[in-house]
């Protein structure tokens, strides 16, 4: 299939940026820094554009059309946030922050009670589960929760029974962290695997070869420099 010039340029640019970022694995260098600044700059530009577009489409246009009281209130709260830019007028922005913090807290806490506390306890209403493994799981969950809490008990010195119980809790915490680290590793492998096709297919191959040559040249030059000194 014939590729357009734009597609070729996109492939080359994508591969170049990936190689520039990955070159950090070799050592800190100017190509990495260019890619880093480019990524941060373009990200903030893009976020600014999307924020303004969303503000325009979802608040300002409906506001101009209906003057609905809730939209007027939201707009005033939003405008008050900007008063932070004037040092003498910082206080009105605190109203906006309080409203935002209050709403976020209320929404999260309401959901947490029903979902994270009651929702998690309700299915464990009975020790007798549907099958043997469910029962074993329920017992392990309860023991893990109880002993992990004991590990975080700082008001009493960990001696005697508390020492034994908190040690068991520590083991459960370590197992939990190990499992999280394992899944974290798996996820992060996927991030790099997703970028590989851009480097080994199409015009990305040329960029990869150029990157490898540059790194090898740098290795040789650094070795000679070390030998001379």
């Amino acid at each position, binding site marked *: 299939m014939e590729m357009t010039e734009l597609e070729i340029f996109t492939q080359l640019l994508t591969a170049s940026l990936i190689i520039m970022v*990955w070159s950090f*694995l*070799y050592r800190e260098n100017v190509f990495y820094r260019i890619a880093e600044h480019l990524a941060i700059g373009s990200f903030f530009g*893009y*976020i600014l554009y*999307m*924020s303004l577009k*969303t503000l*325009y*489409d*979802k*608040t300002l*246009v*409906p506001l101009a*059309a209906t003057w609905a009281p*809730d*939209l007027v209130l939201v707009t005033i709260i939003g405008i008050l946030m900007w008063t932070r830019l004037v040092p003498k007028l910082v206080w009105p922005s605190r109203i906006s922050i309080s409203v935002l913090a209050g*709403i*976020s807290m209320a*929404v*999260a806490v*309401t*959901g*947490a009670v*029903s*979902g*994270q506390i*009651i*929702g*998690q306890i*309700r*299915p*464990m209403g009975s020790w007798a589960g549907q099958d043997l493994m469910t029962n074993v*799981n329920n017992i392990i969950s309860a023991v893990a929760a109880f002993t992990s809490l004991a590990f975080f008990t700082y008001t009493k010195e960990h001696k005697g029974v508390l020492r034994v119980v908190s040690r068991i809790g520590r083991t459960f915490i370590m197992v*939990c962290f190990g*499992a*999280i680290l394992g*899944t*974290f*590793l*798996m*996820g*992060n*492998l*996927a*991030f*790099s*695997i*997703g*970028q*590989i*096709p851009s*480097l*080994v*297919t199409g015009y990305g191959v040329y960029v990869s070869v150029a990157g490898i040559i540059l790194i090898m040249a740098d290795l040789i030059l650094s070795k000679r420099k070390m030998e001379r000194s």
Partner: protein
Amino acid sequence: MSPKLSPLNQDRLIFIVYILLIALPSLLVVGLPLPVTSLAKSFHSTIEGVRDRGVVLWVTDQTFGTWVELGSGEIAIYKHLFSLAQRRGIRLVFATTYNADGAVLSASIVQDHIIPGGFAKGLKYGENWVQLGWLPGWEASLRGLVTDIHKVARADYFGTPIEKIPMMKDITSVKDIDLLGHSGYYIDEYGRQWGGLGKPWVVSISATTVAMAKPWFEKGIVTTYLNGQRGCAEYEALTGYRGLATSAMDAQSLGHLLAIAILIVPNALYLARKGLRRSNSTR
């Protein structure tokens, strides 16, 4: 002279081996086996189980970071949902709450894969599917999507007022929705707002945070989930819409083997040397 590598060169060696390993399947087909788990099967059957003319609310809360892991699976999910819209008149509501990336990615799936692939043939925007775009506020918006959609989304992604979208006239809150779903990095925020609503809820979550999904799933709050890129590959196999996730599985498996080797070999060497030192000192 000992051929011992400096710590910096040890790191470099690991990176080189890792990059070569994950690049290998792109050049040669390794073809390691990929069994489909019950989670992916259940994910597929839950989506298939939506009633005719039912409504699916799908929140694409991905970032460009998670896209390389979950993007391919997301495309397969969109294709599956649109094919159900074609076959059984299921109506689709797409939204984003976490940040603007999701809205852009959602729009690009429709533009680059759904419409050119013929998955929107016979369907009409505003009657069969709607893209609400980014609804800033994340958790508060998630709440709004199940309590009063019209209040939280005054206009769609293209700036059309919601009251002018025919399909949205009878979709106002969770009572009108048959299936909730989201994809992204997090789950707790969604569980807090969607848990206990009595509606099936499916998740495509990053493998990095999949451990967070387990308590929600074990307690039956999340119906089922796709576990990162692997889950996406399984889903691609089930739907037949194969993409990057499927081809990335060999690389994923080889990467895991390297990670296991890096964990085992140095520890084994350390223990062996320790044992050797101990036996030398006792002599």
